[in-house]
């Protein structure tokens, strides 16, 4: 699709969609959103970019191959699940640590494995969909 308007617009859209996808990922715990939706939005961003400027440029912008992103995501999700083991909990139990407080309400920082798991989901969905769409765009 050789439209200057589309390709110029796509560059801005990609940036916006990516920021929005991360926003959706992070708010997911309390409001509509999460890894699946965030990953889908991010994938839409890259697909728009690939349609406007070609898959080669979209893949160059990603820097890493989308298949690798998906596999790394799967690895992150698995390690978030395994992280429960040292705490003596069952596989995939969410582990929370309170920094600057002693409960969810009082702690200033609340690092946890649940968010790490969601990031893994995000990367899997992003990588898989972009990989599929690029292959489709290139081969069909």
């Amino acid at each position: 699709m050789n439209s200057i308007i589309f390709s110029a617009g796509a560059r801005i859209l990609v940036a916006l969609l990516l920021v929005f996808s991360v926003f959706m990922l992070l708010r997911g715990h309390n409001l509509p959103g999460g890894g699946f939706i965030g990953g889908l939005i991010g994938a839409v961003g890259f697909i728009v970019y690939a349609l406007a400027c070609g898959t080669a440029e979209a893949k160059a912008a990603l820097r890493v191959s989308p298949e690798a992103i998906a596999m790394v995501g799967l690895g992150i999700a698995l390690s978030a699940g395994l992280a429960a083991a040292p705490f003596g909990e069952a596989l995939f139990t969410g582990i929370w640590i309170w920094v600057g407080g002693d409960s969810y309400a009082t702690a200033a920082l609340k690092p946890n494995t649940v968010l790490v798991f969601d990031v893994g989901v995000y990367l899997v969905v992003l990588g898989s969909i972009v990989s599929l769409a690029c292959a489709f765009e290139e081969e069909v």
Partner: protein
Amino acid sequence: MAEDTDPNAPWITLAGMLPVAITAALFIFFAGYLPGIAAGDTVRWAWAWIPSLDIALSFWLDGLSLMFALLITGIGALVMLYAARYLAGHPQYPRFSLYLFLFMLSMLGLVLADNLIALFVFWELTTFTSYLLIGFSHADPKSRRNALQALLLTAAGGLALLAGFILIGITQGTFELSVLNAAGSLSGDAWYLPILILVLAGAFTKSAQVPFHFWLPNAMAAPTPVSAYLHSATMVKGGVYLLARMHPSLSGTEVWLWTLTLFGGVTTVFASVMALRQIDLKQTLAYTTLMALGTLVMLLGGASGYAITAAMAFLLVHSLYKAALFLMIGVVDHATGTRDADVLGRLAGKMPATAAAAGLAALSMAGIPPLLGFIAKEVAYAGAVQSPVWPLLILFGLTANALMVAVAAIVAWRPFFGPQGQLPRPPHEGPWAMLLGPMALALLGLALGLAPGYAALLVEPAVNAVLGAPDSGGRLKLWAGFNLPLLLSGVTLALGLVLYLRHQSLRDRLIWLEARVPDLDAGWDRLLEHFMAAAKGQTRLIQTGRLRHYLFATFTVIVATVAVTMLARGPAAPAPSMGGLSVREWGIAGLILAGTLAVVLTRAVMTAIIALGVVGIGVALIFIVYSAPDVAITQLLVELLVVVLFAVAALKMPPALDPEGRQRHRPADAVLALLAGSVTTLVLLMVTSLPFDRRLSDFFEASSYAEAYGRNIVNVILVDFRALDTFGEIAVVVTAALGAFALLKSVSKARTRSGGAEGDREDRA
């Protein structure tokens, strides 16, 4: 084998010596239990494994398992040392060493396991590791085929065994062998016969009883140290071990007695006749292994102290002499480059140590005093005379033992003292690492024969374990006086010598005979061929490669199963009430309906895709109306992606669907679509007419924030409560993406090869 090796390569490597050291240490460890076990103690180690299913990783050391453990580790260490020298310089030797070590551990687990499920796991592990060992020369198609044959046959028996074990667990309420054996015989149980048949199917395939025997001679494709190990103390004895282990639970019935006697007897006679027919010495020994397995099964059919003592003593002596003879054949093969019985001869001068070891082992095999083989044979005859089926036992035993005498002479007399043929290489004595094994094992056969009290130390606790009660013992004697067994031994020896003197003419007649009986090995190949043909046929029938066929079949099955269930047991669907619907909801329904009609009626690809998108967005609107924003967002995004991807594909497709305008499958498609829609609607009406069960919703509403600190229940379920499910799903997403990626790439490659062929465009429409 020997061609890949380099006799001058360094053979003392970490990969070779570490397993030897560990195995030898295990041997010493188990030997330390010998006095305690001989005094009647047993040792049990147990760890919880799957407590919810009553499955524990438990090990039990009694007389029977100790004898096996000592044979496995003792012969194992010698064979590993031998293999290090035998395969010196082989590029894949470290791999071989690992396989052999893993096999040794699996076998050890098999004989020590107390829990039936753990025993089964180790049983299958020995099957897999022996598959790797038999197929070690994987560049040779024959080797691969024989390894696969052994794997399929023994694994099929293993499945029967698992079914038998599960039946035992269900009917007896325990998987622990120690508990089971202490409870006595199962013969009164209604499930006794099914259990017995299943267990025997496993044991007979593993221990190569006729008619499952043909994999064993083929397994000789493995390197000689593997044959020595698998066919002396381990793999094939697995089935015999199982029969001995379960003797207290399963024996004592007519079925047990007759089945084991007949299968074992036929195997032992068949195998000893076939041993005479072979020219390759390794094949000769393979058939004598079969003969030994048959004899052991036949003896285990009995329940008297004599029969069991004979079985255990024969098991011990056979392990010793068979490993020694196999290792000896390896030395001869290594030195001369051939295993042909007609070519080898007059090697005694050049290879005195090998000849001495071979001679001692063969004397034990032939059952000549004062070796342990003689004692074992005497006890076997004594047991046979007392058995209720004594004529059969004496007939089978006498024939097989006489043939064994002849075979022992063929294996150990002819190559060293007989006439010499044209040898490929000038013979020379083997290196010490390869002589240590056969020498030690052969000498042990002599020493235990001269001092049967030490053999009894090993054999009697095993007999007690098999009988399940202390036995009077004291039967292992070198001189038991002039009696019937001694007479039978004399007859055996005389018959054997006659057979040896005539063995070459007998062999020709056997070859003539063999060509005229059905060949099970070839039958196996035909069976596999038919199996493959059936698989190909049904694949061609079901996998048409047309997406429409797949979808048609899928939806037909869904409609049929749901409709049949509804007709058979479903309540009548309540009449839908449309009164409560607002204008907004009617509007969404109208949108979806309009989109569907547009998809069905249009002939332009692009219009159809966009109309499909409209349907999807309509569904997303329904989610929004009923306050499920997460689902709605996901639905919208997926619809968007699908439309974009289809649009990309549409650019390359013919612009019109159904160009001729009269496709014959459309009426059938329409009927199926209407049926699927009606059935789904009915199901939904029925589901919503039931009172809503709020238990799960209440739980998640109450604990989502309290336990998982999140207010978005959908997301908390996804990433916390049901994170394992989500992990499975994203793994599926990745796999599906990679699969589709590979498929698309391979399609494009195939197309560039065939110069841009048309492909199956109709299917992608």
